[in-house]
């Protein structure tokens, strides 16, 4: 009993005071800052997922691998701002010179302001996003303080949080889980693989037909998406400032 007490004392109070205002180590690649004069075509050649287009850098495709910022530090650099999420797919595209993503204006109905139940489906995810999602409920980040909890059965859930590029074998299981969730239900895409298929977009084993039928209401980029970004995104759509 003594060593339990000793370990508990050294453990102390671990919860981050306010995850929305926490700060991360500067080496963390958060919001990319595109210089106005950036040559998008040359950056696009370097990028393994070809995330650059005329409008700018598509955060949905970018895996934050940092190759471009190491080759051309003057054109593109990554700040450690973790507040990167969007409620429509094209809000994720950053034009050169933009300092932050446009605000998320989608809000869940009032009844979900203090209580939201998430059901996670990992459709081909490499287990990094899944571990970050379960870490968002651990002792430090503790998303359950806002009334969000990850439930066992889709029957009890309000939203399906999808990780992974939706492999062909998981399409049927994903559709069955989605149908098992009771209305009103929402779809959240967590991680670059879920949003655009990331590195596996061209692979033959991927089948993203599910996303054509159902519109997602929240996109959380990142490879893997940091727990603070997940908390920031979900609390914003719940209307908690």
């Amino acid at each position, binding site marked *: 009993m003594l060593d339990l007490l000793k370990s508990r004392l050294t453990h102390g109070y671990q919860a981050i005071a306010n995850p929305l205002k926490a700060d991360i180590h500067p080496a963390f690649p958060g919001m990319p800052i595109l210089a106005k004069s950036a040559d998008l075509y040359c950056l696009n050649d370097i990028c393994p997922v070809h995330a650059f287009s005329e409008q700018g850098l598509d955060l949905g495709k970018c895996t934050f691998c940092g190759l471009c910022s190491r080759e051309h530090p003057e054109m593109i650099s990554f700040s450690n701002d973790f507040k990167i999420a969007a409620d429509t797919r094209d809000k994720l595209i950053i034009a050169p010179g933009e300092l932050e993503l446009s605000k998320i204006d989608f809000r869940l109905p009032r009844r979900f302001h203090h209580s939201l139940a998430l059901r996670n489906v990992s459709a081909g995810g490499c287990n990094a996003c899944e571990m970050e999602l379960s870490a968002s409920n651990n002792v430090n980040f503790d998303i*359950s*303080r806002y009334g969000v909890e990850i439930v*066992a059965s889709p029957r009890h859930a309000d939203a399906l949080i999808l990780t992974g590029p939706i492999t062909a074998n998981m399409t049927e299981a994903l559709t069955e889980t989605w149908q098992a969730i*009771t209305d009103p239900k929402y779809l959240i895409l967590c991680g670059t693989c879920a949003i655009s298929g990331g590195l596996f977009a061209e692979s033959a084993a991927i089948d993203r037909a599910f996303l054509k039928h159902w519109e997602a209401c929240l996109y959380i980029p990142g490879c893997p998406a940091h727990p603070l970004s997940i908390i920031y995104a979900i609390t914003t759509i719940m209307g908690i400032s």
Partner: protein
Amino acid sequence: MINLVFILVFPLLFIGIIPKVKAIMVGRKGKPVLQSIRDFVKLLRKDEILSEHSTFISKIAPSLALVCTLVASLFVPFVSTHTLLGFVGDFILFVFLLSLAKGVMALAAMDCGSSFQGMGTSRELSFTAFLEPAFFLIMATLIFSVGSGSMAQIFAQQGILYLNIWDVFAGLFIAVALFIMLLVESARVPFDDPATHLELTMIHEVMVLDFSGFNLALINYTSALKMFIYSSLICHLILPVGSSILWYLILLILIYILVGMLESLVARFRMNRNLELVLVPLSIALLTLAALIAKNMGAW
């Protein structure tokens, strides 16, 4: 009438204390105390999905179970000891109403034809096989020491009279037996982990894996109410006769805190060990009764 207000408002509020205590014990922020009320209100307005195998039982079971538990709680003394309904020997109807609620929920769980619910039901029902006799023995002991009457009168008079050493021991032993029954009935840690995510190890949650929306809200409320009933019975056992409402509320919160602390310090027991522990309230009640009888016979 205050009891009715108590039954409707406090169960979901008090059940929020346990996750808060667990959070403080491990140094995290944890769910807010009102969270279970918020979840209840949200679930009430959500739609429902029923399995294609389900019959009429899945539709009526949660409502019938809630009503039976609600009516059973009308016999129980909460803050005031004269209850709405009460007649001599009403604890028999109380026990059978609770087992009707459990039986109907068991049938509803088996209704959707999946193996998890089957296992959950068989585990839950095998617990009742040992809890019913335990409760009857506890009532027999109380009647033996206090004399027969309605449930409210028995528990009201039983309160520990600090002058007579025997009542203190009898009251404490029975309180321990009731506490273990509380842990089993509301599926708390040593028997079943409410926060677990593993459907193969769940007992109570797996029975409600297939319920959604309105029915799920009713089921959560029923289990909260059951826990509230047992804890208020324990309070009346420990509190000396005629103590004020304040003491009652303090002791009630203390019991919920004790459950929360127990959850963070003890791991779950193995499934077949669970059943052995369910025998403990039965043996405690038997021993207390034997001791009281022996005392009455003037053995010492």
